[in-house]
């Protein structure tokens, strides 16, 4: 055939999608930032690290690293109007690999993150009948997940997880196929207010439970001595860093769909404080409920407090069984996890879809299925099995600590000292924004962030080498392959992907999509 298809014509790449208003962008960015970690990680981290005193390192971390890094992501995505690999490629020669590293991290996270949403969805149903009876821990590990004693990879599927997982993938891919505005934007406009309303009702219900005040007392009583402890400060920076969804491509991608003239810093402060505002709300709701759990079992709050999977799938079922209107509490709690997780999952997968779409110049729908179906199959093949919990545990720990954390450190170092692009990026943000980025921002990104990230990363590496991973420790081969090997593999994959040339249909060859600053345009 001699007639070229429309997509084969140079410059005929589909027009880049955009958010209709900045409100939609802000909602989507909050939806991405507010995830499972806000609900099940923050309350326990705060409790463990100084209680009420934790608010000081937490706010310092938000203002000195969280929000400055958020602006860095916005700047890269907005100025260079591309998915992570394309935006970094346009930022500097040789930076493309950083973008692919972020895409690879998102690939790992999304395949297990979807599974937790599937669990939470099932627990919404279980809450109505209190299916766990009087043994929530035994039910979760035994009856529900049917966790095998052997730590390996198996294909013994658990239908109760498999079926909701398939549904989660189907829904999330349908949303993504609908596009940036009509899919992602619309989903956030529906789910985010719903999450807030559900969670507010949950908090009010928890506050009326007997013992709630004891829980809040345990969470907010300050331990001022903690402020002299570096691990407490590292915990604050770690919490802010993981919670805000910075440095793994999401905010780069979302910012690339903004109009040229958008108040980036004004929007970023709203996103940063809204995310933290939800964490404080979660702290109040979760610890009020934990206080009730201590009250009803006659234990101390410190004995029953937990975080992560233990809080959600073991402690909360116990609370639900004993609380008046427990079924309602359960539906609200697990429903909140589902909605918070779902809007975050959307953003994680979007990083990959946007990258592939830019690279191959395919339509949104086609890219969604080409990327989404393999992702869903990997997730469905590896995780809803009797061996899925251990795999999820180790990949989650290593992709966060040695994937996102390492990638963030390398990114800030390279952008600041290697490519020397901070003045350019700061200048771009200042031109379009209400709050200007000056020297303070460059100090936070170029000096404070690398010191803090480097400290956390090195301490974590030492800890893992000395202690191994898991309680009881997982076999070395398992941790070496799915922990260290996976984290190292991400870098190799990123490097290899950055070597593949960009075709003439790719977004890299669409000059209209680059976004030089106004000053540059006038030169």
């Amino acid at each position, binding site marked *: 055939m001699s007639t070229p298809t429309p997509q084969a014509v140079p410059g005929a790449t589909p027009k880049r999608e*955009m958010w*209709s*208003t*900045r409100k*939609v962008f802000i909602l989507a960015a909050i939806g991405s930032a507010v995830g499972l970690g806000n609900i099940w990680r923050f309350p326990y981290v705060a409790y463990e690290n100084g*209680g*009420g*005193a934790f*608010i000081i390192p937490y*706010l310092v971390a938000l203002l000195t690293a969280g929000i400055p890094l958020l602006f860095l992501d916005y700047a890269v995505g907005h100025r260079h109007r591309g998915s992570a690999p394309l935006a970094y490629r346009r930022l500097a020669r040789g930076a493309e690999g950083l973008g692919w590293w972020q895409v690879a991290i998102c690939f790992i996270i999304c395949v297990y993150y979807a599974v937790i949403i599937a669990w939470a969805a099932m627990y919404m149903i279980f809450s109505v009948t209190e299916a766990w009876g009087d043994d929530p821990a035994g039910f979760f590990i035994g009856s529900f997940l049917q966790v095998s004693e052997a730590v390996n990879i198996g294909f013994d599927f658990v239908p109760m997880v498999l079926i909701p997982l398939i549904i989660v993938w189907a829904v999330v891919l349908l949303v993504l196929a609908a596009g940036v*505005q*009509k899919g992602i*934007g*619309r989903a956030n*406009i529906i789910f985010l207010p719903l999450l807030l309303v559900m969670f507010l009702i949950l908090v009010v219900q928890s506050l009326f439970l007997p013992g709630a*005040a004891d829980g*809040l*007392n345990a*969470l*907010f*009583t*300050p331990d001022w001595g903690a402020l002299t402890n570096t691990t407490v400060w590292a915990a604050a920076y770690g919490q802010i860093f993981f919670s805000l969804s910075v440095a793994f491509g999401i905010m780069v991608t979302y910012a690339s769909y903004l*109009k*040229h*003239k*958008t*108040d980036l810093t*004004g*929007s970023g*402060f*709203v996103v*940063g*404080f*809204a995310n*933290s*505002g939800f*964490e*404080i709300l979660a*702290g*109040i709701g979760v610890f009020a409920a934990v206080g009730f759990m201590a009250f009803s079992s006659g234990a101390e709050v410190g004995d029953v407090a937990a975080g992560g999977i233990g809080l959600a799938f073991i402690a909360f079922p116990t609370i639900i069984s004993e609380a008046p209107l427990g079924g309602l509490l359960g539906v609200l709690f697990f429903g909140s996890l589902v909605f918070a997780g779902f809007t975050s999952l959307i953003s994680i997968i979007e990083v990959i879809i946007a990258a592939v779409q830019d690279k191959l110049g395919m339509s949104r729908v086609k890219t969604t299925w080409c990327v989404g179906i393999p992702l869903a199959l990997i997730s469905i093949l590896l995780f809803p099995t009797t061996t899925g919990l251990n795999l999820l545990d180790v990949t989650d720990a290593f992709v966060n600590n040695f994937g996102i954390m390492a990638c963030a450190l390398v990114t800030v170092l390279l952008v600041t000292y290697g490519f020397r692009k901070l003045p350019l990026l700061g200048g771009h943000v200042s031109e379009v924004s*209400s*709050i200007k980025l000056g020297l303070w921002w460059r100090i936070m990104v170029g000096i404070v962030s690398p010191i803090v990230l480097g400290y956390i990363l090195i301490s974590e590496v030492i800890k893992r080498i000395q202690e191994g991973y898991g309680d009881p420790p997982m076999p070395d081969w398992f941790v070496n392959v799915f922990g260290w090997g996976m984290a190292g593999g991400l870098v190799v994959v990123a490097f290899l992907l950055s070597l593949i040339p960009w075709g003439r249909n790719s977004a890299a060859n669409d000059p209209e999509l680059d976004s030089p600053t106004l000053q540059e345009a006038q030169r």
Partner: protein
Amino acid sequence: MSTAAIVMLIIAILTVWGGLALALVNLNRHPEDDGAMPAEHAPEL
């Protein structure tokens, strides 16, 4: 609840939610440039 816990609860709420309120006020003072609205968007948004 102890006095110290109540004080820290109030400080946490005031700083974080106060920060959010300030951020929203700042954003509203700088309305976006409606001229650059993309032509095609979901009608209800």
